[in-house]
């Protein structure tokens, strides 16, 4: 029997900055369009995690009156610092010597989750229907191969896939255009990139894993509006990464760490690198006496323009970081994600009006400022594959002297899951034990995310080969899932590979980094996952 279906003009998957922007812009262009947004989080913002120093350029275009309308964008960047960290030393890089992309004096320190909540209110006022707690779990195709829409997940299945008393069949949502805005490594995005060969001729996508904690600190350590970035210690010179420390409102500090997922040592634990980073004297002195009130982690895109797939297909668009519009040297993706949403809306509006296909998206995107800044930023990340020092020297030349206009484009050579070396070829890394004050273990951290998944449901982290973790990955790589997962979902217990899927915070790192691509992240039952507040 066919599932129940609802018809819309436009269905958007994901209520993040890109998806919400698309919906708002579409309603501005044509209030009569029927638009719905599906969101897997239990409420808008629950799965949003970002630094975030926000550039308002796209928002100025979308809702120029945002300040008057009460957008949660209040703290202007007042001071900037960039530090190179050695183990106990630090060297402050003069801000006038920073490349222009890393200057933030016009930007704001915000909570992206709260901005999304506000954008959702604006969208609902315009008549957009938003359904939190309903993950889109399946792409539906027309007979001619175009995208017909998406289906929501069946609810109320037990762990073996049998129907419980509360079983409720998923629904089909059909649309003239379906917009995929799931964020980095969206699981439907991954499927359609493959199906339509959207990454044909592009470099393999590059990812990072980002951590964030929110701290309430002592008044005298807090300088509202202060933005600090660091690179160097505790990472070795071959591993790409760095930190952010943002002094937000209400004595809160947003502190985080990003590590490129192209790291080589399977013993590296991104979570523990972040914890260790906080023990540097420069960082310790800010946090000491304060209290950690939130924790989270999420994978992010680092590939830039070289890895950006084609963003349109018959009946569908792939936008924001579901495609990969983040500007890595700028360490910002919200503004480009929103711009890609504005362009998506303009494309859909024109295509419905003139009954044309969606290929105009490409041209519009190429002519936009978003493309221009991604183009100028393109050589920074790949240059760091030569190591930190050469990367910095090259980036200085490329970004300050040539402003991203060098007549060549460096390539990303390998996908991140191919970068790990065998465990017997590398040195084991010993991490210091957490002290429970400044540094923490994974258990107490996952507790702060509020994540939960209803018990007795199918495991949403699927293994292609259930024996591979023990027979191969454990032997060759000492099963790095135990370390790259930021919340300890994966454990090896007495030659058994255990998946604690209840703890998953939907960061997607396993789906990216597993050396044989053996783990696939699929959507769990609606409402599952973290309950982030002002992340």
């Amino acid at each position, binding site marked *: 029997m066919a599932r*129940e279906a*609802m018809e819309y003009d436009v269905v958007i998957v994901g209520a993040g900055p890109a998806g919400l922007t698309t919906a708002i812009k579409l309603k501005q262009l044509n209030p009569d369009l029927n638009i719905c947004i599906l969101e897997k989080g*239990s*409420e808008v913002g*629950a799965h949003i995690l970002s630094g975030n120093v926000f550039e308002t350029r796209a928002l100025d275009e979308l809702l120029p009156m945002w300040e008057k309308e009460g957008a949660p964008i209040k703290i202007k960047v007042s001071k900037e610092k960039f530090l190179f960290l050695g183990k106990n030393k630090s060297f402050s890089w003069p801000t006038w010597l920073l490349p222009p992309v890393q200057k933030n004096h016009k930007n704001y320190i915000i*909570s992206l*989750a*709260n901005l999304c909540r506000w954008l959702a209110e604006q969208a609902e006022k315009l008549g957009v*229907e938003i*359904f939190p707690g*309903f993950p889109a779990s399946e792409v539906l195709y027309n007979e001619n191969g175009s995208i017909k829409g998406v289906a*929501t997940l069946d*609810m*109320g299945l037990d762990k073996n896939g049998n129907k*419980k*008393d*509360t079983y*409720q069949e998923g*629904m089909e949502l059909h649309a003239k255009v379906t917009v995929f805005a799931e964020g980095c490594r969206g699981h439907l995005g991954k499927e359609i990139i493959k199906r339509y060969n959207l990454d044909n001729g592009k470099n393999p996508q590059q990812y990072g894993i980002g951590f964030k904690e929110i701290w*309430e600190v002592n008044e005298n350590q807090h300088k509202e509006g202060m933005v600090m970035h660091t690179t160097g210690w505790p990472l070795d010179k071959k591993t790409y990464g760095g930190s952010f420390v943002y002094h937000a409102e209400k004595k809160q500090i947003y502190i985080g760490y990003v590590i490129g997922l192209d790291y080589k040592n399977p013993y590296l634990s991104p979570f523990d690198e972040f914890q260790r980073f906080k023990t540097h004297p420069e960082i310790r002195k800010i946090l000491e006496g304060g209290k950690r*009130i939130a924790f989270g982690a999420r994978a992010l895109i680092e590939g830039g323009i070289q890895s950006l797939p084609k963003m349109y297909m018959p009946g569908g668009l792939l936008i924001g970081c579901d495609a990969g519009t983040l500007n890595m040297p700028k360490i910002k993706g919200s503004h480009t994600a929103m711009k890609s949403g504005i362009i998506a809306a303009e494309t859909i509006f024109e295509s419905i009006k003139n009954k044309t296909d969606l290929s105009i998206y490409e041209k519009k995107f190429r002519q936009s400022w978003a493309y221009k800044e991604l183009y100028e930023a393109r050589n920074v990340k790949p240059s760091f594959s030569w190591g930190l020092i050469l990367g910095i020297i090259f980036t200085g030349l490329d970004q300050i002297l040539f402003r991203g206009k060098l007549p060549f484009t460096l390539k990303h050579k390998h996908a991140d899951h191919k970068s790990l070396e065998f465990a017997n070829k590398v040195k084991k890394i010993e991490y210091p034990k957490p002290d429970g004050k400044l540094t923490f273990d994974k258990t107490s951290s996952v*507790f*702060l995310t*509020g*994540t*939960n998944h209803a018990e007795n449901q199918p495991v949403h982290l699927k293994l292609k080969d259930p024996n591979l973790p023990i027979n191969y990955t454990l032997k060759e790589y000492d099963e790095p899932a135990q370390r790259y997962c930021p919340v300890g979902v994966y454990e090896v217990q007495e030659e058994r590979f255990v998946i604690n899927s209840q703890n998953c915070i939907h960061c997607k790192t396993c789906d990216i980094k597993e050396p044989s691509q053996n783990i696939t992240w699929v959507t769990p039952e*609606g409402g599952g996952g973290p*309950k982030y*507040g*002002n992340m």
Partner: protein
Amino acid sequence: MKILVAVKRVIDYNVQIRVKEDGSGVNTDNVKMSTNPPDDNAIEEAVKLKEAGKVKEIVAVTVGEEKAQETVRKALAVGADRGIHVKADSYIEPLGIAKILKKVVEKEKPDLVFLGKQAIDDDCNQTGQMLAAILNWPQGTFTSKVNLKEKTLEIVREIDEGLETLEINLPAVVTCDLRLNEPRFASLPNIMKAKKKPIDQMIAKDLGVDITNRIQQLKVEEPPKRKGGIKVSSVAELVSKLKNEAKVI
């Protein structure tokens, strides 16, 4: 037959509670809110009775700030027919809530009032009992099973000694235990339909009841941090530690 179901908006059970720095309460900024879990059981049971043809109308009521309406909306999405939102901008103690609910009962004249057995925020476990008392109605608390008969209600209660089966006369107040049922999911079409169902608004202070709080809250503190355990080498040492250090024997 008509059932009135009371629902409350509380901090989601998955969220880690943070105490405000000044000790005046818990932090609700940027915190995910949900329906109090046993209230979901209360709604579910009412909907089941309606599906069984024993109940004609379900009215969901909440008392609270503007956003508490979301809780009523959710009840409407899983099967309640109408909603009532009694607006109140500040905290009201269980007795005040019971008095407000009594006013609603007098207006709506339901045969049954269902509530969650207690709310997970203040854990008072009083509202249902107080409502039954001031209405002078029979009450069935901690209910894990209901069997609605013509003029009476058979209930099974979860008590310390086991299960207690009672038969009470209607009209009655019933407070629901988590074991009563497994709440259903709201479906997309029902969420959309719920947006069109009516929610009547009332203002708490206009109802003519005394809702002044009688309890003065001195301070809210976090529970003390759990200390790590220790290993003892002998029974004698254990006994001595329990006696002298823990002072429990």
